[in-house]
Structure formats: structure tokens, C-alpha cells
């Protein structure tokens, strides 16, 4: 019984790992297989979507229907064909219209770098904080007698002691699922008793 269970567990873990590997393979294949050289149309659209249409309200140069936006898309196309880089073209427009008026995606340089770094930095800090807090909670001996009393089940443990521990965990899990479903449902819990 135990041997069959552990075999099943191993099989389902392997199945899961294989599935994850398959997904990762598809993603990396897509990532590397897509053409690295975008077409002119794509580049024009990319650059135009980083610029704000100066005469419209809340629309990018790529989306705005106005004549000025059309003209600007034309200028972008000319400059792309002339071999200028994306940041050079954006620089060209921001020097003509003023950076604050026309660029609506902060560039990865100078002061506007802050716009990117602050949220990303805070999220990472949040992860770190969460990690520390959770570690703290689990280590606090005054608060966590139960947590310490029970040894941690090793994820890939092969010896029989941890296997029986896992079996017990599995039983407890099943019990928990049924109990969660049966809680505050007298009819259902009665049917469990009857089934017994």
C-alpha cells in the first residue's frame, strides 16, 4: 500500500515536472524563434506608441487619428528608414516639443529612471520583507510550539520515515478537504456518517 502510494506520488511529481518543462520549452522556443529584426511598420508603431499626441487628449501618436499624429508617424518612418535608433528618434521629438509634453513612457535614463526603479525596487523589498517576516514567525519559539514540534517533511525524502510522514500528511489533507466541505453542513456530515 505504502509502496504503491509513494510510486504514485513520484509519478505525479514527474508528470508535473515534465509538463512544466514542456511549457518552458515552448516559451523559450517562441522567445528565440521570433524574428529579432522587427519590420519598419512595427518599429514605427513601437516608437509612436511611446509618444503622446500633443493635440489630442490621452492618445498616443500611434493611435491618434489627428493630422498632426499622421504627420509625426511620417517623420518617424523617415527617420527609421534613415537608420536612426529608437532613442534618437524619441530624443528628436522631445527636443522639439519638450520631454514632458510628448514622451509618455519614461526612458531608462536620467530622472525618469526613477519612475521605473521605485515600483520595481519596492516590490522586491516587499518580497524580502515577506520572506524575513515569515522566517521570523516560524522561528519565534514562544509563538510556534506546534510548528517546531512537527518536523518539516522533506520535499524529495526517500527514507521510509519521511514517507510515512507524507502518507499521514496525505490522509490529513483528504480529511481536511472533506471536513472543509462538511463544516456547517449538517446534512452532508450526516451522509458521511451514514456512509461509514
Amino acid at each position, binding site marked *: 500500500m505504502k509502496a504503491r502510494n509513494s510510486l504514485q506520488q513520484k509519478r505525479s511529481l514527474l508528470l508535473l515536472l515534465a509538463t512544466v518543462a514542456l511549457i518552458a520549452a515552448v516559451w523559450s522556443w517562441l522567445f528565440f524563434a521570433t524574428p529579432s529584426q522587427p519590420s519598419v511598420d512595427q518599429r514605427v508603431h513601437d516608437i509612436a506608441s511611446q509618444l503622446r499626441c500633443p493635440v489630442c487628449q490621452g492618445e*498616443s501618436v500611434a493611435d491618434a487619428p489627428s493630422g498632426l499624429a499622421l504627420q509625426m508617424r511620417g517623420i518617424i518612418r523617415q527617420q527609421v528608414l534613415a537608420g536612426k535608433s529608437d532613442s534618437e528618434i524619441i530624443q528628436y521629438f522631445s527636443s522639439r516639443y519638450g520631454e514632458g509634453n510628448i514622451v509618455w513612457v519614461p526612458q531608462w535614463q536620467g530622472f525618469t529612471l526613477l519612475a521605473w526603479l521605485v515600483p520595481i525596487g519596492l516590490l522586491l523589498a516587499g518580497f524580502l520583507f515577506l520572506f524575513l517576516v*515569515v522566517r521570523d514567525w516560524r522561528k519565534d519559539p514562544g509563538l510556534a510550539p506546534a510548528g517546531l514540534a512537527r518536523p518539516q517533511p522533506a520535499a524529495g525524502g526517500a527514507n521510509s520515515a519521511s514517507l510515512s510522514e507524507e502518507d499521514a500528511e*496525505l490522509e490529513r489533507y483528504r480529511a481536511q478537504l*472533506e471536513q472543509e*466541505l*462538511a*463544516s456547517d453542513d449538517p446534512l452532508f456530515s450526516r451522509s458521511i456518517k451514514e456512509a461509514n
Partner: protein
Amino acid sequence: MYFSDLGIIALILALGFALYTVIASIIGAMRSAPPLVASAKRSLLAVTFFLLLASGALVVSFLTHDFGVNYVAEHSSSSMSWYFVTAAFYGGQEGSLLYWAFVLSLFSALFVITSKRAPAALVPYVMATLMGIESFFLFMLATLSNPFVRSAVAPKDGAGLNPLLMDPGMLVHPPMLLMGYMSFSLPFAFAVAALITGRLNAEWLRSIRRWMLAAWTLQTAGLLLGAWWAYHVLGWGGYWSWDPVENAALLPWLTATAFLHSTMVQERRGMLKVWNLSLVIACFALSIFGTFEVRSGLISSVHSFAYSDIGAYFFGFLAVIILFSSALFFFRLPALRAEQEFDSIVSREGVFLLNNLLLIGITFATLWGTLFPLISAAFRGQTMTMGPPFYNQVIAPMIVLLVLAMGIGPLLAWRRTSLSALWRNISVPAILAALCALILPLLGVTDVAANIGFTVCTFTGGAILYEIWRGARVRHRHGESYPKAVYMLFQRYRQRYGGYIVHLGLVFLVAGIIGSHYFQQQKDATLKPGQDMSVAGYRFTYLGNIDEKASDKETISSQVQVWRDGQLQGYLYPGRVIYATYPDQPTSAIEIKTFVATDVYVYLADWQGAAQATIRVFINPLVPFVWWGGLLMILGGILCWWPARRRLASAVRTRETKKPESVVEKPAEVADGGVIA
């Protein structure tokens, strides 16, 4: 004597009763004098009555076209239809503040009427907090932002409503959104009451969660209607543009979502009390920020239809709220210790922590992007506005992680999960996800980001459906047929399965967003009759323009045929409406035709006489998913909220009567469950 005079009198009386409620309920609670608390309750109902009277007076002023009232003259005209005239009530700042105050008083009255269900010690403080907020709004309404101010000479006709607001969406979207903002007052009042009395028990938690769930559902509906309105009116082919006003409405929704999840941890494990209280306070502060940001002109936005100088007062109010609640908070900090320890990160509470971190991350990134123009103006002297690409790049990865966590979370048990059971339960949705990842490139979806998004959505959708199926199977084993088992699951555990419906809705919504973001196609063309244009397999033949003149407006619409696979699919009439009161602001009448899950969105960009039109076509795949998903989320929210009220009442009653019995029974149930498994 005009109706507007009646309105002013009602406002002042309401203010008086609101102040009395604050004082009477606080003194009544401190001296434990029930008669005083009872009089506070009656006085609160009087506030509701007088606000009803004031709102009625404004509606009557609008409907009788009393242009002597400035507000009526500025926001309506005699040619408008009666429903838009009524909706003009909240078309400007004064009226929307009145609406806010009115709905708050309605909800407060609802609270008073149902106050037997709330913990008795908290009731006076909840009333005091609610009426404190109400007093601020009534003070603003009575002095600086009074909708009933009359001019010496009444103009002959009003200026009319902004044409963008003359849309059916206007009838439902602003009242819903303002109601959503307002409804965060109730959880806040419960939080303040609990901090003052120091009673943060399970009963309190259930009350506050119920109100927060109601607020969340209202705000979801408000956001969805806003997106729908933008999609159908503004003509840029999208439904969300990360505009400051939209962001402001999203912020309290995000913190409320975080709260609804983290309170489950508090309910089950007695942890995160400090965190939950801060979330409630943040929700309310953000909703006040949202209410006033629209009006203050602090940050420029497409949606601000009214500017004014009351921003400073709102800012002061916001500061008072934050200072007051922080002070209370630190005063009670010793009472907020966690009751239980954290066992394992691989547990449901572990995923809830991740969920909260991500939601707060999204909230902060959104707030940061919204406020960045102010920050850059302060440091560099020029405002840098953040466009959608910024938000998309920062927030999209977090949303994908959130959806992933949403799929894994329900598969984990509380405290700690057996890893082997986890592998088994995850396998099924993981295989579905792998199939999705494999099939999409074969269907021509080569974008890796879109593939990641869809795969994660498939995983989570699969996990939710699998979880429902698992529950149904357990019941089926006890002798119920599968359809009945599913029905009984929803019937018995509405909170749990209502939550799954919300999650499923979000999966649909995210899939819709990914589809319309990555696969939108767009084309503009200036056409003469008989000419056509093709986009993404659809062909559009332009036939000519139709001009209709009415007394108050002129409508120009182009007749366009839609063809697909050589077959005529129908006629579309994208048009423009020019209102006589706003001749230079033609609004658009956009035509949207849905083919299965793809929207064909046709917009008349420009026209010349009767025989030339510039047509702009968007092909928006999966946008209908956004609406279906949103509807599912609202449905799930209602499911979670609705029975909670009845079940709570009955649960409290049974606990009172059958307390010893249930204590004895519980271990037996556990043993039963253990044996059967």
C-alpha cells in the same frame, strides 16, 4: 419660495442632525446610556430624510427647468430629454457631492436598520464615524459647493450637459462609481469603531467583511460600467487607458481585494490584524482621494468634467482621516498581536500573503504612475505624464503572477499542504496549460508574452473548474447526481464557490485584456461611395452619409456594409451627433458588431458632405471576454455577499442556543472525515 430654498434648509438641518448624531452616540457609548444611542439612531434617520428632501429638491429644480439655480443652468437645457435632465443631477461637482452624501446617508440608515446584527458595542462608534464623514460633506455642500445657489437673473435656457455625458452609460456609470467610493466608508467606520472599543473579534470581522464585500462589488460594477462607457463612447477602440481618474477608481478596488483575501487569514488563523486594519484605512483614504482627485484638477485627465477649488478642503479632510486613524492604530497596536504562528509558506495563507504583496504592488505602481507628474513637476519643473505602456510593462507581470497564485491557492490547504497531494492536484490544470501553450503557436499566436498570459489563464481556469469538479465528486460519492452536486456546492458554500466564480471571471477578464492588447488591428481609410477597405479578413464597403436633423441635435451617420468570406454580414451606421448646445464637440456614435468573441468596432473619424467619410476600424479580439468576465465577477461578488447575511444571522442564533452541542460535535466530525478519507 423655490424648491432650491427648501433644498438649502434641508441641507442645513441635515448638517445639524449629523453633528448631533456624532455627539449623542459618542456620549451615549462612553456613559453607556442606551436612550442617548437610540436618539442618535433616530437622528441619523433624520439626516437621511433631510438628504432625501434636498436631493428631491434638486431633481425637481432640474425637471421644472428652474434656470435661476446656477447648477441647473450650467448642467441642463430645456431641450434635453427628461432622463438626461435627471442624470445631470450628478453631472457636476456640487450635485455629485450631494449624491455622495445622499447615498452615504442611505447606507448609514441601512446600517442602523440592520444594526441588531452588528456587535452592539460598536454601533454608536460606527454611527459617529459615518456621520463625521457625512458632516464634512454636508459642510462642503452647505457652504463652498452648494448646488442650490441662485443667480439674480435667471437665464432663458441652460448651457446643457457636456455631450460626452449624453449617453445611456452616463445614467448608470457615475452613480455606480460614486456609490462604490462612498461604500468604503462603512468598513472604515467599522475599523474605527473596533479600534476605539478594542473589540476586534470574529463577529466584528464578519460584519466588516460583509460591508467590504458589498463595497467591492459596487466598485467592480462601477469600474466595469466605466470601461464599457469608454469603449462605446470615446472612439479609440479601447476600454481602459490608465487615465488618472480611472486609476483613482482602481486603487481602492485593489486594496479592497487585498483585504477580502487577507481577512480570511485573520478569520482562520488570527493573524495579520495590523495589516488588515491598515488595508481598510487605505481603502477609505484612497476612495476619498479618488473622489476629490477628479474634482481638484490636481492631475489633468480626460474625464474631469468639473474643476474647482475645493481640492484643498478635501486634502485637509484626507490628512485628518489619515492622522486620526493612524493615531488610533498606534494606540491599539498592543492589542493586535497575532494569535497563531505561521507554519509553512506552502499553505493557503502563504499564497494569501503573496496575493496581498502583488495587489499592494499593483496599487503602489498605479498610484506612483498617477502621481509621477506631480513628483517630476516638483523636482524637475516639468510634468511627465505616464502613458499606458508604462503601466502595462510594470503591472502586467504582476497580474500574471497574481492569476497564477489564484490558480495554486485553492489547491493548498490551510497551515501546510502535503506536497504529494499538491503535485497530484496541480497536474491536471498543468496539463491543460501545456496543451494551451502548444496549441497557440499552431494557431498562429507567436508572441511569447501573449502565450505566457494565455497559458497562465488556462492553468488557473482549469484549476478552478477542477476544484469545483473535485467538490462535486466528493458529494457525488455520497449519492448526489453531478448537476445536483454542483448546485448543492453553490447552495451550501456560497462564499467559497462564489469566490471561485469571481476568480473565473477575472481569468476571463485577463484573457480578454491579453487578446485585445496583443491582437488588436486597426485601419483608417477615407472612402468615397462604393469604395472599400479590408482588415483582418473583414471587408467594409462605404455607401454614403445620412444626415438627420432634430430640434436639439444633428446626426450624421455613414452607411457601411460588412463582408466576411464573401458574405454580407450586415450594415453598420457609425456616426457623429452634434448637439445644438455644444456645436464644436461632436460626439461619436460608435458601431460595434460582435462575431463570436471578436468585436468589429467602426468609428466615423471625419466626413465631407454626403459622399466622403474617413472610417476607422478596429478589430478587437476577445473584448467580449472582458464584459463576460466582469459580469461573472459581479455575480460572484453578489453570491458571496448575499447569503452571508442570512447565514450569519442564523449562525449567530444557533451559536447562542446550541453552543455546547457544537463544541462537542466538532471533534466527532473531524474523526468522521478522517475515517472516510
